[in-house]
């Protein structure tokens, strides 16, 4: 398994942010295609940085496992780069759709992809050094505890019972004697209130 390490930060990030144009997805795809047989390392890194969090969310949503989601990120990014380098992506203007399709297919083929995955990793691992922002732990837990304590009782019950195991409104509602619609309203208010509280304390 390769280790995905963060890129070194730019020496003057504010300068880069203000002046450097941000390439859109299709431009990145074209640059990667055009660089073959060499590699446009910056474009590949930017593509990985941009899409890794989205692929990871897809993996968490469909596989409900951190480890499986992390594997999916690697598999899909490496397959995407392989296709782009080979000029095998027909519609580079629809790169996001291509990557989403690859995610869907990879999940479907998960059991059969073991051998292929190993081969691709061997091909790409030594040459890639891309950043993956995959941490969900950026929240200050102590702050979150305080904010949870300040929520109205119903909102706290609904949020805890919802997010402890990602349960839908009908399940939470039937346990608490509430309608699914009512749970959604309480949940939405709770999320808004909680995020506002966390943000206020952060700032």
């Amino acid at each position, binding site marked *: 398994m390769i280790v995905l390490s963060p890129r070194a930060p730019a020496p003057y990030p504010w300068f880069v942010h203000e002046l450097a144009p941000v390439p859109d997805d299709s431009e990145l795809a074209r640059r990667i295609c055009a660089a073959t047989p060499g590699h446009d390392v910056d474009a590949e890194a930017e593509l990985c940085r941009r899409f890794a969090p989205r692929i990871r969310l897809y993996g968490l949503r469909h596989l409900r496992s951190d480890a499986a989601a992390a594997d999916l990120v690697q598999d899909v990014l490496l397959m995407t780069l392989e296709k782009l380098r080979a000029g095998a992506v027909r519609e580079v203007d629809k790169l996001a759709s291509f990557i*989403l399709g690859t995610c869907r297919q990879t999940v479907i083929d998960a059991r059969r992809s073991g051998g292929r995955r190993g081969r691709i990793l061997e091909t790409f691992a030594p040459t890639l050094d891309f950043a993956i922002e995959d941490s969900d732990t950026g929240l200050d837990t102590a702050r*979150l505890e305080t904010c949870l304590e300040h929520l109205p009782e119903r909102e*706290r019950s609904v949020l*805890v019972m919802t997010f402890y195991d990602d349960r*839908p*409104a009908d399940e939470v509602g039937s346990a608490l*004697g509430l309608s699914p619609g009512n749970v*959604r309203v309480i949940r939405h208010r709770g999320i808004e209130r909680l995020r506002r509280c966390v943000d206020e304390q952060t700032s």
Partner: protein
Amino acid sequence: MSRPLCSSPIPEAELAAYWLGELEDSDAEDIEQHVFGCSHCSNLLKLLVRLGVGIRQVASEGTVHAVLTPAFVRQMKDNGLRVREYRLQPGTSVACTIAPDDDLVVSHLHAEFAGVNRLDLIFEDPDSGAQQRMQDLAFDRTADEIVLASNTRYLRELGTATRRVRLLAVQAGGDREIGTYTFNHSRYQA
């Protein structure tokens, strides 16, 4: 130059419904398609997921008090959490504690909830008279108990103390007490 924000952002409530698997497949796929091509909405979803992960962590560590359900507590135990449980009928008391390896301490407060539209809970220190009122609890009228999870950090710092919980049916004409439960807490002794 920064990337333009999304021109048609997905409401957070809809992102939550997507994440929790409440949408029809076609609606979920539409959201997925949009999120994949949109840094703004994918970031919103990421923040929502991060909040959910944080709530899960706090719940697993028992560092928040909350009214839960028996089925939910069973699920936590099935997930491997060590849950210390106390069961009380109205008007009774219990000697209670928290062990070093307890993840969660819950009290099953039995009562008759038929006809109760709004339920409040008063948590009080009988010695000082200090009170804290938890208003409008989520509860199932058809059940014969509510489950109160106590903040484990608070319990670990409590030492030897008595705390009383009163359940009140809030109704026109005044509150009606439907149960009083006394907790005689002491430090854990192996």
